[in-house]
């Protein structure tokens, strides 16, 4: 029955039924097939899935991101990044990575990151002679840091389902997120030696301390936001959810003071953020009935058993889990893969005594690699449409950047401390 449900989920999604409907349908059919289930459970499980205070961090960080974007934060952060690293060879490429990194500290979503940074810097990169496919692939991969550097919506979703501290996951994402940024910069550096990329050897700007200072002064509110969020969670002043609410108020006050936002814009910003919330929270809600069916049929135990016949080493198990998630993530929407596999990850954590933050980070990074792996890669679609080039040009370039991110994933699997040291040290589990 599990095979039937999961293959039909895949089939229904592939013929273009919205993901929310596809999951709801599978949960509904599954419940109807079990004779001893009373059907109102369908509504009750949707309610139960959303009945979580930790999940609220997601709408709050979506809203904070929308307010900051409406206030023009992304341009200021890109200007800051250009002033900081724009004088390197392939300066714009490096600036786009640093810009995405800083933007990741403000927004919790990789799609928001990729579209905000991409719409500003991709046109500039094309003007300088960069290949559009290269630019689109780079910005999409850099955008994945949005879900790995705190705050992160993906971590909120995983933490709420797997019952792992979201503050801890946020803190665990700091080192892996920065490593991904450095790995991407190293990849760009390697590209500068490639004979077919002469445009990457140009130096287009000179370092100017004055300009850097100027950019810091205009971007300070955006640079300060991650410090408030991470600092607040580190010191235990507030939880991840409260940090989200505080970030919204902070963004509003800054927007009003800088006269970037008017009172009239507020309702529309709220509605836009609510739509984004409903798309993600809606999928989470309908995954309640489906998740209930899967656990009723002991899906996690079945996967765990079949995996443990291959190997018994915890590291090996994590590698296998990661490989399966990335493989599925290339064909299926990666949010669904995360929702289906979160319970499996919980059993793996418990059975093998792994650190919950390490497992969480592995899950989130796999989810993000899935989001840039063709053919179904939402991040690539966004940046490619900004770069206005055929999608196969982007696909041709994305492999190198994905490889860099996969190397970081391997490090996170092999060295638990990268993802677990900060949260365990500061939150003192």
């Amino acid at each position, binding site marked *: 029955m599990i095979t039937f449900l999961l293959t039909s989920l895949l089939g229904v999604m592939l013929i273009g039924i919205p993901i*929310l409907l596809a999951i709801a349908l599978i949960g509904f059919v599954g419940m109807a097939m079990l004779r001893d289930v009373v059907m109102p459970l369908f509504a009750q499980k949707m309610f139960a899935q959303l009945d979580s205070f930790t999940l*609220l961090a997601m709408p709050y960080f979506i809203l904070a991101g929308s307010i900051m974007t409406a206030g023009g934060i992304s341009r200021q952060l890109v200007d800051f990044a250009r002033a900081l690293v724009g004088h390197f060879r392939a300066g714009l490429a490096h600036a786009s990575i640093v810009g995405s990194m800083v933007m990741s500290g403000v927004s919790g979503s990789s799609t928001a990151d990729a579209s905000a940074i991409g719409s500003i810097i991709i046109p500039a990169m094309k003007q300088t002679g960069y290949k559009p496919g290269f630019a689109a692939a780079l910005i999409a991969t850099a955008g994945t840091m949005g879900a790995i550097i705190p705050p992160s919506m993906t971590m909120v979703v995983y933490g709420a389902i797997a019952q792992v501290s979201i503050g801890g996951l946020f803190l665990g994402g700091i080192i892996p997120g920065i490593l991904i940024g450095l790995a991407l910069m190293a990849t760009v550096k390697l590209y500068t030696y490639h004979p077919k990329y002469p445009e990457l050897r140009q130096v287009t700007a000179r370092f100017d301390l004055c300009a850097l200072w100027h950019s810091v002064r205009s971007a300070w509110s955006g640079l300060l936001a991650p410090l408030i969020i991470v600092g607040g969670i580190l010191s235990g002043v507030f939880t991840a959810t409260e940090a989200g609410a505080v970030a919204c108020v902070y963004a509003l006050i800054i927007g009003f003071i800088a006269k970037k936002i008017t009172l009239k814009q507020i309702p529309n910003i709220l509605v836009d953020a609510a739509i984004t919330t*409903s798309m993600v929270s809606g999928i989470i809600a309908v995954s309640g009935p489906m998740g209930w069916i899967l656990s009723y049929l002991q899906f996690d135990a079945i996967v765990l058993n079949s995996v443990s016949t291959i190997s018994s080493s915890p590291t090996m198990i994590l590698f296998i889990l990661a490989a399966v998630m990335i493989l599925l993530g290339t064909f299926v929407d990666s949010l669904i893969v995360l929702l289906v596999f979160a319970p499996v990850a919980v059993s793996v954590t418990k059975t093998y005594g792994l650190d919950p933050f390490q497992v969480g980070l592995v899950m989130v990074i796999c989810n993000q690699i899935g989001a840039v792996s063709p053919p179904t890669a939402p991040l690539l679609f966004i940046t490619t449409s900004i770069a206005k080039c055929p999608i196969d040009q982007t696909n041709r370039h994305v492999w190198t950047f994905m490889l860099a991110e996969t190397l970081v994933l391997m490090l996170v699997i092999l060295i638990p401390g990268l993802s677990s040291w900060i949260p365990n040290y500061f939150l003192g589990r």
Partner: protein
Amino acid sequence: MKPLFAAIDRTIELIVAAIFAGMVMVGSWQVFSRFVLNSTPSWSEEIQIFGHIWLVFLAIPIAYRRGAHITVEAIRNYLAGWMNKALDLINELLWIGFAVATAYYSYRVSLVTGNSVSPGLEIPMSYPYYGMILGSVYLLFVVIRRLAGELPPPDPDELPPELAAP
């Protein structure tokens, strides 16, 4: 009828905006009151959770109206015109099924849970389910309007900026 429908649409949007604004205010009040007044209100977490449920189910139809729900389009591009039309019709029928099932079963649950009281706010536990019912009824209303051709096809310009690109 058109002005009336437009007024209903706008009212729902404003309700959603008001709920969201209220949630943020309660959330920041919770932090403020813990640090400045040294007391954590017992009702604040619960009211945000219930607000979120209302928000999600009321915004699902708005997202539907604007064509925002995530869909895998890859195979659609290779299908013939009539097959796409048929699939679109199946989609709308599934939306109707989802709306009816959610509304009806939420109503059934609300009958039972109405007898118990929530621990924080001390309101009947049926209140969050009313959001699911209202949202689903509005969804049904919107889908039927689209089937009847009253609702224009989704306009990408109406999407939130981070979703508008593809």
